[in-house]
């Protein structure tokens, strides 16, 4: 009896140790990306990197050889380290903003310096602008805001195209027998085998002839190729789950087929359709390769982040901010669609 309880307890402990280590392995890289995106440029160059980004910094001002000397308190070494020695307060303020992510106006600095007449050193504390890297990312990456808007447009159009076209076919799959059904079923999955890049390259010319090259609609037409296939599969299984009898009943009462679909079938299928829309959104938001090929002057947000990460060997904190900006909508999205995904997987439950 006693032994039984002990072994049960040991099993339970082992189980939770497993779960906890999995969570740690999954979250550690994510944690560091978030943490890195809050570091000032100076912190990002330290090794080892600080585990937790500092919220505030303590400074010391004193007279130096060239003018005034600014030092920052180093928590690891427990001593002040000289950062800059200058007479130019404008320069000192800019330095603090760019390197330390701290906003201190020149007036404030001059105010501190006036105190140096009475004392040798002035100490002050300043809060770090935590969103500094994010602001810088948008400031130095030309095109980031319009690219963000374009990405949303592309995603919206992809949802529209794949839901309307794929939804219709999904309904046909669920409700009718027709010639070529099986062939279509297989070919719909086969489209994923041909790499997206290989589709995108000739699409440059095809889209150019219809005037959609380098436009959100052009990209969404390409993205819909993959999402239509998925939408057909998902919607087919959703419509299959809605009893035909309901539709027949509506038609007996005189409703047209279209009206039946709009008033009876569509509302019942809504959660599944929402999930399809979200898959389409994820696909369109994340896609990078075709976007690189199919845009020239109007890149999507993924392309902008791709370029900044690729070129950011010396600005890791900015690359991290870009990565977070790219990933955050998707993570929030997953939180939101969790329910639907679980439904489709047959209820791993939440």
């Amino acid at each position: 009896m006693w032994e039984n309880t002990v072994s049960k307890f040991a099993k339970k402990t082992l189980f939770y140790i497993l779960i906890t280590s999995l969570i740690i392995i999954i979250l550690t890289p994510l944690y560091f990306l978030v943490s890195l995106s809050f570091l000032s440029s100076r912190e990002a160059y330290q090794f080892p990197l600080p585990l937790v980004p500092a919220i505030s910094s303590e400074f010391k001002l004193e007279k130096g050889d060239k003018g005034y000397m600014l030092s920052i308190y180093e928590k690891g070494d427990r001593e002040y380290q000289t950062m800059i020695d200058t007479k130019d307060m404008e320069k000192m303020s800019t330095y603090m903003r760019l390197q330390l992510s701290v906003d201190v106006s020149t007036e404030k600095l001059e105010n501190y310096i006036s105190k140096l007449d009475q004392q040798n050193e002035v100490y002050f504390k300043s809060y770090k602008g935590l969103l500094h890297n994010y602001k810088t990312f948008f400031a130095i990456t030309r095109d980031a805001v319009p690219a963000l808007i374009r990405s949303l447009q592309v995603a919206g159009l992809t949802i529209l195209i794949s839901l309307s076209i794929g939804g219709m076919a999904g309904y046909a799959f669920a409700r009718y027998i027709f010639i070529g059904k099986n062939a279509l079923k297989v070919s719909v999955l086969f489209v994923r085998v041909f790499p997206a890049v290989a589709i995108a390259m000739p699409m440059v010319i095809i889209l150019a002839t219809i005037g959609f090259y380098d436009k959100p609609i052009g990209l969404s037409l390409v993205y819909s190729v993959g999402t239509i296939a998925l939408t057909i599969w998902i919607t087919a299984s959703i419509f299959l789950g809605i009893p035909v009898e309901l539709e027949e009943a509506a038609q007996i009462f005189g409703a047209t087929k279209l009206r039946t679909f709009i008033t009876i079938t569509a509302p019942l299928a809504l959660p599944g359709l929402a999930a399809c829309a979200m898959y389409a959104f994820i696909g369109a938001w994340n896609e990078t390769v075709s976007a690189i090929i199919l845009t020239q002057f109007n890149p999507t947000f993924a392309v902008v982040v791709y370029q900044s990460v690729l070129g950011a060997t010396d600005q890791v904190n900015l690359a991290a901010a870009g990565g977070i900006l790219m990933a955050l909508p998707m993570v929030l999205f997953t939180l939101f669609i969790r329910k639907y995904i679980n439904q489709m997987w047959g209820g791993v439950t939440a």
Partner: protein
Amino acid sequence: MTEIIIHPSNLLKGVSTINLSSLKKNKNWTPYLLIAPTVIYYIFFWLNPVIASIYSSFKGVDGSFTLQNYITVFTTTSFGEAFGNTAFIAGISIVIEFFFALALALLINKKFKGSAIFLFIAMIPMAIPAVGAAAIWKTGLTAHGWMNSLLYYLGFLAKGEKLLFLSGSKFSILWLVIIIDTWQVIPSMMIILLAGLQNLSKEAKEAGYIFGGNGLTVLRQITIPMLKPTIITAVILRLISAIQIWLIVVMLFGFDRIPLLLERVIYYKEELPRLDNSYQIASTYAVITSVIVTIAAVVYLKVSGAFDISKKEVM
């Protein structure tokens, strides 16, 4: 890349286990009208570019039909490298990911306190876009990156000591890519398998125990065979996207360092556009990659017996 997952039982439900009595069997033009947009769409935006790709892979610089592009590709050393690297990464990562995911799914296969939160956390890596993942590992694997910092804090590295992840030998880089890929894929694959396990009937398993099976035989003879459709879906989706790996590698190591099949396509298209035939070579690589993906998918489906399953279900 975000894996998009549907539960296989739903997937098959949609087409094969149809309730025949409820279907409208009369000769009706409605279904054709409903599928027409899809068919037209695919002809225009899939078949059209696919044919264009194949066409330009057989087109010489002067516009005539030629096999020269294929000869060029197959005789350059980078093709062998690209093929080898891709096969190595795809082969090993799929095996590792599948077995880890299956083991974890079997261990976790129950509701527990906090399972909802755990599942959400496990979904996060697959929601991270390729570009985001690249940002994670690019900031992590540089000499001053967070990985070395973490190892230092944990006491694995002495002060001043750093591991140079990104400048190791080719072999160690390939393994690094596999590990990175595993981080992103195992959780999502685990969730698919977990979902499949939850759908299995408990009675079959109990019967197995009643007839004297131990844990291992029940697992091998009852659980795994019943889970087969789920496993096939999970592996086939993974297989298709594993062979198409390139973005994370290029973002970490740049072009031409670790040639991959798809990396070659982008390399010729975007990085070497000055060659007379770079577009044709890129198309040739794209066509070759599709053929390889198709062969791998068909071979896998054949070996795993997926064709038998779907035949049975259609009957």
